[in-house]
């Protein structure tokens, strides 16, 4: 089963550029969903105005809440979320982050799409300007860019 799932993921991963419309792969225990721009833009969007270590000054980021891309009420306290980028950079963060703060999957920066060359297409953004406690290095590592995959790992 695991091998099967892994091979499916691999096929999907290599197939991303072929099916250009797939922007984000969402994995939950129930299964896998591939979201294209239309699906992403259909989700309720949240705007976060913030700065971080990788940009100068305050920028406006817009996109769906990380807690909502898995389906309404799916993310619970104590769960973990594993995020993977196009360059295979991956990070696991506590779902509490997404529940406690307005953590978004930014699809636009200052109203414009972000290219792969510039941290696109999706950049995970924490509202660091609003919550100074989020400026600690541990959160800095969670600002994953070129996001391609989000997986919900429920608490055991």
């Amino acid at each position, binding site marked *: 089963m695991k091998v099967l799932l892994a091979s499916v993921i691999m096929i999907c991963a290599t197939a*991303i*550029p072929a099916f250009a419309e797939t922007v984000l792969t969402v994995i939950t225990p129930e299964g896998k969903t591939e979201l294209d721009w239309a699906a992403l833009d259909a989700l309720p969007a949240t705007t976060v105005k913030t700065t971080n270590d990788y940009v100068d000054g305050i920028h406006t980021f817009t996109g769906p809440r990380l807690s909502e891309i898995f389906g309404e009420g799916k993310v619970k306290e104590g769960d973990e979320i594993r995020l993977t980028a196009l*360059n295979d*950079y991956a990070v696991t963060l506590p779902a509490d982050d997404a529940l406690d703060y307005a953590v978004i999957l930014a699809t636009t920066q200052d109203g414009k799409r972000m290219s792969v*060359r*510039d*941290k696109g297409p999706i950049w995970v953004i924490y509202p660091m300007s609003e919550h100074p406690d989020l400026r600690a290095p541990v959160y*800095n590592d969670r600002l994953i860019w070129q996001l391609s995959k989000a997986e919900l790992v429920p608490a055991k």
Partner: protein
Amino acid sequence: MILRFTAVRWLGVAIVLLALILNGIGLYRIQSSLDQLSDSRRGGALWAAMQLELEFLRLERALLDFTGAGGEITPDEVRLRFDILWSRNSIAASGTDGRLTVSSPDAVATLAELGDALQQQEAAIGDLQAGDTAAARSILDGIRGFSGPIHDYLLAAKNEQSDLDALSRDQLLLISRIMVFLSFLVGVASLIVVAMFFIDSRRHQQVSAQNAGLLEASRAAYKAKSQFLSTVSHELRTPLTSIKGSLGILKSGVLGETAPRAQKLVHTAYDNTERLVLLINDILDLEKSETGVLSYRFAALDAGQLVERAIEACRGYKAERKVKLAAQIEGHDLLVRGDDGRMMQVMSNLISNAIKFSNPEGTVTVAARRHEGHIEIAVRDDGIGISEQFLPQVFEKFTQEDSSDTRSAGGTGLGLSITKRIVEDHGGQISVTSTLGQGTTFFVRLPELAAVQADAAA
């Protein structure tokens, strides 16, 4: 010695405080050093350089795969790798938080040149068609030369990070050494301060023990002296009583007429003997009042009658001064609870004082009345008065305003002290008002005894 002691102690306290402040500064400095130490965060120089090299190698491999097997790999995948390398290059070039990730000039140049090379290949990558191995090979040739410089860039990043680490480590080591030294200093200084306080308190204990000893000794000496005084007074009284008795018999003429001149001498001798008896009684009373053994027999006492009897008793006193005595009694049954003998002592003391300090042919008025739940007895003279400075001291022992050898009044200066003690033992108060040159009034206020209580007391 004491000054040096205090100085050392304050120096100790100052050292402790200074060391604590320096420790605080040291801890604060450690924070910034820790920030620089092993900056392995995603934004750190080393991570950025490693990712740059990794993505360069991945693009290179994608292009090689594309030229070799073809078909296995799509142009879109090559373009994705190209875009990611582009992003890594711009991240390394722009740095984190305004800081260049690697600052050596060669490294900066490498990034700029790689950026230029990527821009030159941009169009070719965009136009890359499946199976177009020639185009892929041309792109590969365009970037291949960067393999060495990018690795050098990684090494430069690694070196800069190690230098930074070493610097931070040295700083941390220095700071921690200083802090160890300061902590040691704090410990030593604290010990010194504690020792100082300990020694100081020991010395205070010694001094206070010495003081207690001195106090005890002086008390004993005082007691011995007053006991001596009391014994001597007692011993004096016995012969004095016999002298007074003999003189009294001589004076009365029972033993036959004496010559008028001798009679006068006998009178003088008798008066002075009486005075001497009064003085000795005063001294004995004082001794008793100090040791707290004045004894009382309390009974209901009419203040009006007391005043009249006291005036009668004092009539003969200093008759040559021709001072008039007047009683002013308001109301009846001015009852108090008192010892008849002691209260007579109080009254005669006050009245004889008044006569003594009154002007010749003046008037001493003794008044008794009911006033605000008390019985008030006032003894008023129209004499020289008491100065404002001396007034608060009149009830103290051995004091008379004119204590020079030429004083006119005589007496021990004990009378008012004993009077005050007796009045207070009766639950009353004594006070005085005076105007210099116009006269003095002493007030004795005693609690009034209600009729019912008077019966019980009687």
